[in-house]
């Protein structure tokens, strides 16, 4: 399962050339990232839209 170094470099260079890092203001795109488990519901009055993320980590509970 080890990645060949030259494959990783090729992929990294491709992603950079494709423009992933080329956006000014793009750091703000990540606002709220990683807070999926902590988000609280915020329903708009008319449509039921919510600010919560769609997914969260699944916690397995202990079984006896």
């Amino acid at each position, binding site marked *: 399962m080890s*990645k060949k170094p030259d*494959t990783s470099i090729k992929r990294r260079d491709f992603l950079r050339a494709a423009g992933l890092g080329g956006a000014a203001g*793009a750091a703000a795109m990540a606002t709220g990232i*990683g807070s999926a488990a902590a988000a609280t519901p915020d329903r708009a009055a008319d449509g039921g839209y919510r600010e919560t993320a769609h997914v969260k980590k699944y916690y397995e509970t202990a079984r006896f």
Partner: protein
Amino acid sequence: MTESGSLAAQAIPEEDALRAHYYWFLGRLLAAPADDSVLAIASDLSGDDTELGQALGALSKVANALSPGDVKEEYHELFIGLGRGELLPFASYYLTGFLHEKPLAKLRADMGERGIARADDIKEPEDHIAALCEMMAGQIRGDFGAPVDLYDQRDFFAAHLASWAGRFFEDLEAAESARFYMPVGTIGRIFMKIETTAFEMVN
């Protein structure tokens, strides 16, 4: 799997952090009408001369031109409507013509194995494009446990996004009601192509 979860981001390569940002942003744009904070972010974007960069510029331009009310109405027409919107952004719909089909069942099984759960108050099926983008972002970053390696990311992408997401984003670009969400479609379409090509380099 029973960790309480750390808020600190786990160290991942820069290019993968950027991928996660794009997935996360697309998820936010598609989960609900763009609110003031999302519009502010969109308005401040500017891109380089790549196709992706140009699409960001187009989004920024339209974000500056439209009001939050316009955008909310547009989202309604595209995705909510009366009963249904112009588009149904679900894997099951794109792959079978119906909602709640095998693609959703497959996804749920995969989510179970990967330690991903649907948030408690979300009523839509999990095979919504916004949820899938969120799942990719979370797996890249390690929000559901350790960061998922590129092979497993590729498998998830191949199983749940590759066969339909590009078409959805094209439909969004072409949708009659789309003004703000048209460049969202462009960004999504280009990003899906980038992901597909980049995953081909994983072996």
